């Protein structure tokens, strides 16, 4: 599988995982734009959602992100998150 396809699939998977983990009841995964800001003004996620995403990444991709200083950039959008996961995933 090419890297591009893998990234596309990752984006879709992450959207589904986020909607489920964060109980985003009124949002369909495909309504989340790839470059939309997840926190603050965009999707409106907060600090509690952020730590839930840590757990989701750990469970699904074996990524330990807790002490990463760059979390703000990695968590900016689905796009940035997918790229990070693609590079660092352990499963």
């Amino acid at each position, binding site marked *: 599988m090419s890297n591009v396809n893998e990234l596309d699939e990752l984006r879709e998977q992450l959207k589904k995982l986020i909607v489920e*983990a*964060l109980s985003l*009841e*009124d949002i369909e995964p495909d309504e989340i734009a790839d470059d939309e800001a997840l926190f603050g003004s965009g999707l409106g996620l907060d600090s*509690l*959602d952020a730590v*839930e995403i840590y*757990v989701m990444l750990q*469970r699904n991709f074996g990524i330990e992100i807790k002490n990463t200083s760059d979390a703000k950039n990695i968590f900016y959008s689905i796009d940035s998150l997918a790229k990070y996961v693609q590079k660092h995933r352990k499963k």
Partner: protein
Amino acid sequence: MTMYISGLGMLGIFGKGRDELIKAVKDSRTTESYEKLNVDLKAAKNKKLSSKMRRADRFTKMAVYSVGDAVENHETEEFNLRETGVILTTAFGPHNTTFGFLDELITYGEKNVSPIKFSHSVHNAAASYIAQIFNIKGPVTTVAQYKFPVVHAITLARSWLENKLCENVLVCSVEEKGNVFDAAVNQKLKISDNNRLKPINFSEAGKAVPAEGAVSFLLTSAKIKSSCCRISQCGFNSCDFLSTDCYIAGADGIPPDQTFYKKITSNPKPVCVFSPVYGSIMTGTAFDIGIAVLILNNYCGYNDYIVNQAASSCLQPKKITCVKSDCCNDFAAVSLETL
């Protein structure tokens, strides 16, 4: 100090709100007639409120919806929601979320549990939601008590008002149903096989029909437009048993010792039991108080629920006393009077 009930929100197996409870009382609905002994949260859903509760559990949702009804008139009424206090009372708290968190621990290990589940398993999560959603900035407290959780909360509300901690108090009582607790109740007390609640049955130990629900009262120290009755007395192990027109006994099959209720039913005044309408709930006293408010305001009668051979019944009661006994023959009483 006299307090006024100036707002009432109820959510139970009978449905949501005053009208559905009145209908259930009028139709003599009983636990065996309900399809499920759970609150129908979908039917109770309020879009405005639920949009602020995406992560919340059932326990919190029940609490918030009941508060929503209790303060529905706050914009047009003369009470200040901001300066209101909140007392959330429960016996067992959000136990389904606690067990959900234990599932996380068992499945994923200590290093990989959900922080959302953890933070919602903390007992005061529901009260926190209430404060956030209704922008309440007064004192907020959650109490967890097996004995008289509702009367303890009302007593505390009175202390808050007497000591001027806030202008009004929302007392919200919540209990949820779940498989583990049902199994525990069944082992301890036996759950009734056919969901039939026979609360005053002195020949055999009462059997419980665990249910769930939430009731919220807005208590004010002054009489306001929406006030619907006053609480003239509230306390433990003392009650003026002669001056009341009617009793509502909180017998619901949970404490097996019914000595106290037996004593009460020998009273010449009518004694009613409404637990078959709402089920066996540790915070059931709140439903009794809610029903007393409806009776005092002539929304429904109580004749079908009288359990003693009353020497004299009173068609238009002006004072109703709700009594609840525990397993040790202690009791709590709340007297409500018409305005």
